């Protein structure tokens, strides 16, 4: 039970090389579940090793319960870790694997037996206690690895991509179990993954990393709905967010973006999106419009901009069908219910909710704040939607 705070943490290997971690700043409360997510090589595992004390940081501080632990050795930090490869001791049976950390801490043998029994019951591995790791399946090894971490009752759990070696079905099961476990035990947890679904489903807080820099730190909803930049927007969400290049235009003191589906029906192949009040420098600026596939809806509705487009490809996934059209010469994915899904070559009417649309700077990739967005009522009077399908 502890809070964790990283202050300006830096990590650099050797000398003269680039920083592996750059000014990492984040903090989580007691009992929170923090996800570190990012592509391979983004530094998320390094950061975890730094928290565990397996690697030294070259700048900044790591605080647990407001006490700086960055100079402590791993065994004094009271942190337990579950490794991607599980790292079970191959010559010891499951019981000894779980008990090893307790023996090292000079716990009384009777207390160790009690603790092993408690953990084994919790993880339903009582029947495996006498086996060696080599005799266990991947999922069972995973449970033992978690048991070893649980037995110590540490202040903080670290999980380093614990599910990546499991098959797809088991991964989903264990994901739910980890979430249940955390809800029950309420221990502060840091969890590294490159799987954005794990990030969204498990985390109280998510830190998206790239090249050793935290791109965004927030709740899963914030990360999903208000991504800080193009990288976060593209990394979180499956299928990924659509990015449509636009040139901003000025009319009636507002900013507008023009979409063009190049379908040969006069007047309906264009759509003007109201994108907020005009700010200095916005005019004629090249930007990227970000729209999630589920935010593009079928059929026109009064007061919302819409456009006619031709279906190029459909991908039925089961629960949804992904429909691909071209807007501004860019492939755009729309998520639809299978019943409503059109055929290839069919032309259909799509509508957008301008409130949910995001704008990104084409050069820097940063999200542009849509300050002074017009209210829905105001917009209704200015938009002339295309009617009918």
């Amino acid at each position, binding site marked *: 039970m502890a809070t964790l705070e990283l202050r300006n943490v830096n990590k650099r290997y050797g000398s003269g090389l680039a920083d592996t971690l750059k000014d990492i700043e984040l903090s989580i409360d007691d009992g929170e579940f923090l996800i570190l997510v990012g592509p391979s090589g983004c530094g998320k595992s390094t950061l975890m*090793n730094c928290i*565990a*004390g*397996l690697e030294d940081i070259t700048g900044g501080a790591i605080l647990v319960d407001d006490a700086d632990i960055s100079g402590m*050795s*791993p*065994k004094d930090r009271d*942190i*337990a*870790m579950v*490794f*991607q*490869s599980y*790292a079970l*001791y*191959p*010559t010891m049976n499951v019981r000894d694997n779980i008990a*090893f*950390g307790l023996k*090292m*801490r000079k716990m009384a043998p009777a207390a160790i037996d009690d603790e092993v029994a408690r953990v084994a019951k919790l993880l339903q591995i009582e029947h495996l206690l006498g086996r060696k790791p080599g005799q266990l399946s991947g999922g069972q090894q995973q449970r033992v690895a978690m048991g*070893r971490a649980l037995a*110590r009752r540490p202040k903080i759990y670290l999980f380093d991509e614990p599910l990546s070696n499991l098959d797809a079905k088991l991964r989903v099961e264990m994901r739910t179990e980890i979430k249940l476990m955390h809800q029950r035990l309420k221990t502060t947890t840091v969890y590294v993954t490159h799987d954005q679904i794990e990030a969204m489903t498990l985390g109280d807080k998510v830190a998206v990393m790239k090249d050793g820099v935290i791109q965004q730190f927030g709740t899963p909803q914030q990360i999903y709905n208000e991504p800080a930049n193009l990288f976060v927007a593209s990394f979180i969400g499956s299928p990924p967010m659509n990015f449509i290049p636009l040139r901003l235009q000025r009319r009636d003191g507002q900013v507008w973006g023009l979409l063009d589906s190049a379908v040969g029906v006069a007047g309906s192949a264009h759509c003007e999106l109201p994108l907020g009040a005009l700010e200095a420098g916005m005019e004629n600026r090249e930007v990227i419009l970000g729209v999630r596939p589920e935010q593009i809806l079928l059929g026109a509705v009064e007061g919302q901009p819409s456009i006619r487009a031709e279906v190029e490809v459909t991908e039925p996934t089961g629960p949804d069908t992904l429909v691909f059209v071209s807007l501004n010469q860019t492939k755009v994915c729309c998520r639809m219910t299978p019943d409503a899904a059109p055929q290839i070559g069919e032309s259909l009417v799509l509508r957008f909710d301008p409130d949910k649309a995001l704008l990104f700077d084409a050069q820097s990739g940063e999200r542009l704040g849509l300050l002074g967005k017009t209210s829905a009522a105001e917009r209704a009077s200015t938009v002339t939607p295309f009617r009918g399908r």
Partner: protein
Amino acid sequence: MPKRALSLSRVAIYATLLAACAVYLIPLLIMLLTSFKTPDDIRTGNLLSWPELFTAIGWIKAWDSVGGYFWNSVKITIPAVLISTLLGALNGYVLAMWRFRGSQLFFGLLLFGCFLPFQVVLLPASFTLGQLGLANTTSGLVLVHVVYGLAFTTLFFRNYYVSIPEALVSAARLDGAGFFTIFGRILLPMSVPIIMVCLIWQFTQIWNDFLFGVVFASGDTQPITVALNNLVNTSTGAKEYNVDMAAAMIAGLPTLLVYILAGKYFLRGLTAGAVKG
């Protein structure tokens, strides 16, 4: 498939294998037979003839002349093998799991030790032993063998430990184990195959060594290889081939025994880490 076993290619394979066996086993057979013959029998009969009378006189005489040196060899070999294996394991553990700045360079330099011919180190080693006051002592020979063997044992253990995931050490560190606890409780129990390789390798090297033995020991401290040489090369009196053969067998038996007892580990250990999974 009893019929297919007799196909031409099978016969050829077995014939080749038998021929190879014969090449290695016939000298051994000749030695054994000769060692049990009387000197007269040896002079009159041919090499492969069966002894007219089996006698242990050759073995008894051989043990009388080289028995003491046999124990010298034991006293040199066992500590040297154990110390060099243990130190090699520790070195390998550090080089694989606790890399430090320059550890790769250190390992590279250490590897040079594997390519150093015995003759090159004779003078420096003799000077060093003299300075340490260990010249012509059993401990001196043990020291030379440990130092010379370290390059090999370190190489064996380092390469074995490199194939073990570092996460194991990380997990043990988080569990609260220290440097030696991790070594003793986690890694050593996993090292049985490579320990066997090391023991066999070092035992063979040190037991069979002649050059260091003849240079760094004299008189009562000489190992059996040197004693055997002195016995066989003696130019006084009649040649007692039965005694020579018996003494050679006594000198060779321990290594033979080690191979028979631990040979399967040797193959297993040498190929460990070569194939993943």
